[in-house]
């Protein structure tokens, strides 16, 4: 007969208040196989744990049930206590009689009955548990960071500086992300490029970092500590080691296409360097724009290149790499102006979005830092800034708040005033969200020092009329309609997950939230872990964030990754599926349902890869002959638990 011990926690009055713990202990002591049952005010306290340890030793207990709070809280505590007393951790189970009983019921006798049933069924389970030791696997001690924006760069640097190799994958020709496009940053107004470029250089020069720009993740397999990734390196057709940035090629290039870096405010050639400080510092031949790679098609660039850096025969490469952890920092894109019917579908040249305005303000921008309207290059005297453009609008656009618009709009208004002293800046807002260090002060400064005019309300319509951009709106404070003949309108467009993030999520088996941002494992307690162990999230890929938050999360993600990479071996829960070979007929249904490809069919029988198996048990419910079951949650155990739940 098994010797099971049951320990019932009062949790002060949290449990004892609604559950008659004495009675429960009494009942359980009657339960066959239970040789010890006691209650104590705080089982998780040291004296409480000692009770358990002593009882295990003195009463030679071989199984332990602790009836207390949710296993998520103290399972580890009590399993450690059991091991301290020489019991295998898996011979200790938690019966949750707080969250799922005492806290949700008032009727004491009924709550007591229910608690008893919960504990009895846990006793029936635990007495059928087998001793298990964690499975361990070696760790590949390198990481991959996807996305070369500020978050990706920061994460890569933190990892590299901790001594781990990092592969930094960026799909565009240069790292830097959106931050490199910004002119100044709130609330300090220091120059974005000036603070970012040093980091870009550092990461590119770091001996531990392997930079892979113009590359995309093709495929990810494996599991935490042992991922196998395939990375597609797209051809730039320019040998960056030979290229001396003489720019001859782009001068002769006959093709002009909109410049992504300036968000279409300027053009670029088919062969181009994204921006002067681009890293890697090299030209890229945009094959989509190029008339053709054959010299007969064009070939001008190759002709003029003295460095002979241009190689039309460059082929795409697929590199296979092994990494132990992955950080996803794929960032954001702005919600397309084209979606804004009320604001002229982005067809009005002088209606810009936030990033375009950043470029206008930027010294390296199309206007060399002067604010001129795209339509006629005149200085705009009246500029209307519209917040929440596409945000907080569940009916037509995005339901969520994009978080940073309030601040950058203020910054924009300020920058505008600093360039055009006699100009007037209006800001349409729903309300100002300026939570953050120095943010509120920043807002005040804009209003007091720069006389930015805040209009509370929404803009109903924007249209062009004799060279002006007419803005119709309502001041919801005064209730008066507002009409402004603006020279320029700047829309604080909502933040969206960057294009392609969804496909990537599929490849990485990551979950997305309803808005398409990557889901964290827990909204509060695991904000940087993804649902897949060994993969972490950083930056705006997870939710709208400003720079300091993105950087903080990046460092957090790096730290989390390091908790894996710093291990020699990783330990994997041993509660995995097991096959009863003599019952298996090899129909392979379990192979089809396994989400982790952990089951394989070998000469008529299936086999489990215990490291890949996460123990979900979907296979066991699928098997028609119960030939595959999860250790320590076998069908037999569930059967007995059902019995105990319904007994009495």
């Amino acid at each position, binding site marked *: 007969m098994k010797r099971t011990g049951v320990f019932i926690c009062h949790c002060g009055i949290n449990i004892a208040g609604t559950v008659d713990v004495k009675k429960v202990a009494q009942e359980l*002591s*009657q*339960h*066959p*196989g*239970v*040789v010890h049952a006691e209650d104590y005010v705080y089982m998780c306290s040291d004296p409480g744990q000692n009770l358990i340890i002593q009882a295990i030793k003195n009463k030679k207990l071989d199984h332990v049930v602790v009836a207390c709070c949710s296993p998520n809280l103290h399972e580890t505590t009590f399993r450690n206590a059991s091991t301290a007393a020489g019991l295998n951790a898996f011979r200790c189970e938690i019966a949750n009689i707080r969250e799922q009983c005492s806290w949700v019921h008032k009727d004491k006798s009924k709550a007591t009955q229910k608690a008893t049933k919960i504990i*009895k069924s846990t*006793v*029936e389970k635990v007495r059928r548990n087998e001793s298990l030791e964690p499975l361990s696997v070696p760790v590949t001690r390198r990481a991959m960071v996807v996305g070369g924006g500020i978050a990706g760069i920061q994460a890569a640097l933190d990892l590299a500086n901790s001594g781990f190799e990092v592969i930094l994958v960026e799909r565009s020709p240069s790292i830097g992300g959106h931050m490199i496009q910004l002119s100044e940053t709130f609330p300090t107004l220091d120059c974005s490029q000036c603070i970012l470029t040093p980091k870009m250089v550092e990461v590119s020069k770091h001996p531990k970092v392997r930079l892979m720009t113009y590359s995309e993740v093709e495929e990810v397999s494996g599991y935490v500590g042992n991922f196998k990734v395939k990375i597609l390196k797209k051809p730039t057709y320019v040998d960056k080691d030979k290229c001396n940035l003489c720019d001859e090629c782009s001068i002769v290039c006959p093709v002009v296409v909109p410049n992504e870096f300036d968000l279409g405010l300027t053009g670029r050639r088919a062969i181009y360097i994204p921006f002067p400080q681009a890293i890697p510092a090299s030209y890229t031949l945009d094959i989509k724009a190029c008339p053709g790679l054959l010299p007969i098609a064009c070939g001008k660039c190759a002709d003029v290149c003295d460095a002979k850096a241009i190689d039309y025969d460059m082929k795409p490469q697929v590199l296979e790499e092994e990494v132990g952890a992955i950080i996803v920092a794929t960032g954001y894109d702005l919600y397309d102006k084209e979606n804004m019917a009320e604001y002229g579908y982005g067809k009005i040249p002088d209606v810009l979005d936030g990033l375009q305005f950043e470029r206008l303000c930027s010294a390296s921008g199309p206007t060399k830092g002067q604010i001129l309207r795209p339509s006629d290059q005149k200085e705009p005297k009246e500029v209307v800034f519209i917040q929440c453009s596409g945000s907080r609008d569940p009916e037509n656009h995005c339901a969520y708040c994009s978080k940073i618009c309030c601040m950058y709009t203020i910054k924009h208004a300020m920058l505008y005033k600093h360039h055009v002293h006699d100009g007037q800046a209006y800001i349409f807002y729903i309300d100002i969200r300026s939570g953050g260090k120095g943010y509120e002060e920043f807002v005040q400064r804009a209003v007091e020092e720069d006389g930015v005019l805040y209009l509370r309300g929404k803009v109903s319509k924007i249209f062009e009329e004799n060279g002006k951009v007419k803005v119709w709106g309502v001041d919801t404070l005064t209730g008066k309609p507002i009409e402004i003949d603006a020279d320029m309108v700047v829309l604080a467009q909502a933040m969206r997950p960057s294009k392609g993030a969804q496909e990537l999520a599929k490849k990485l088996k990551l979950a997305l939230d309803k808005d398409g941002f990557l889901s964290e494992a827990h909204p509060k307690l695991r904000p940087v872990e993804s649902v897949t162990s060994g993969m972490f999230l950083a930056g705006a890929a997870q939710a709208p964030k400003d720079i300091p938050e993105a950087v903080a999360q990046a460092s957090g993600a790096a730290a989390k990754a390091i908790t894996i990479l710093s291990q020699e071996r990783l330990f994997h829960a041993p509660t995995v599926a097991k096959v009863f070979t003599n019952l298996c007929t090899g129909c392979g249904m379990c192979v089809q349902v396994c989400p982790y490809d952990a089951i394989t069919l070998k000469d008529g029988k299936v086999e489990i890869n215990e490291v890949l198996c996460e123990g979900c048990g979907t296979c066991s419910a699928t098997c028609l002959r119960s030939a595959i079951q999860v250790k320590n949650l076998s069908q037999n155990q569930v059967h*007995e638990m059902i*019995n*105990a739940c319904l*007994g009495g």
Partner: protein
Amino acid sequence: MEKILTKKALPQWVKTLTSYKVYFPKKDQENRWNYLEVGAEDMNLDFLNTTLPPKKLLFPQNEVFLEFFESTDGNQETLEVKEILPGEEPTVIFGVRPCDARAAWLLDKVFSGDFTDPYYWKRRNQTILVGLGCDTPPWENCFCLSVEGSPYSEEGLDILLTDLGNRYLVKSLTENGAKLIQPGKALFQEANPEDQKKAKTIQAESVKKIKRQLKNARGISAKLKGMFDSNIWDEESMSCIRCGICTYLCPSCHCFDINDEVDSTSPLEGKRVRTWDTCQFPDFTMHSSGHNPRPEKASRLRQRLFHKFRYFVENYDKFQCVGCGRCISLCPVGIDIIKVLDKVNEHGT
């Protein structure tokens, strides 16, 4: 003593049997007969034979032997056990075919001897079998004559009825039979010689109507001796699907299994139950070691025939087969015990 009862009077007689539980054969929509407690409207005996023999009433498919409950006090565990015996329930079964009664008579031998089975006998002793002779064979596969029975055999019966058209010739064979007639004796007339003569001719005629015949039944048991390892078992069992029809529906098959049917493991609570079992199930002789001395269906078919035509003959000098033909008529794949035994006759030495 022989009496006459008109068919019209039959229900009236039954009504006088107030102290008994009364069963009659009843037909379902698929024309299958079954022994059930019926209302007056169904108290007639114009039937063929039931799918399930009356065995189910004497030797029910599940019989609770005892109930047990565990109670625990700290380390002190006590197990309470309560024996269950069939209750007092005098029973009459009308329309038992002579072959099925004969089977009961064979079961009597099985459940007595060195060990008397209290459960069986409790039922047997309080059950009266009113037989109905077969003027025409109820199944096309009847072969009672070949196994020392007959359409009017009397073994195992308390009363034998012979259908004389609109009347029954009622022959009481035991005290129980006589007792049964008592309450309604007003309904019976003495049988006159013509009636008896008519019955004789009907019985003689009926024998001729039996189509199927098993040759040399007595010789078979000797022949089987040498055929344990014969390959005819493989051939004949090729189409067997290892179901329990031939044995569960056999009036004389009596193998059983005893299980503890646990309703709750803690506190331990349950019953010890005897249920029918059959040599045709793969687990019948399965050892806990996993070894099975009768691993494939050939050995199971062999066991069935050896038991009926050799072992039983050796033990009781009777066939453990009454020739009712159910196993032939109801086998889903047409395995025919007569055909198989004919083969035994050919091959055997």
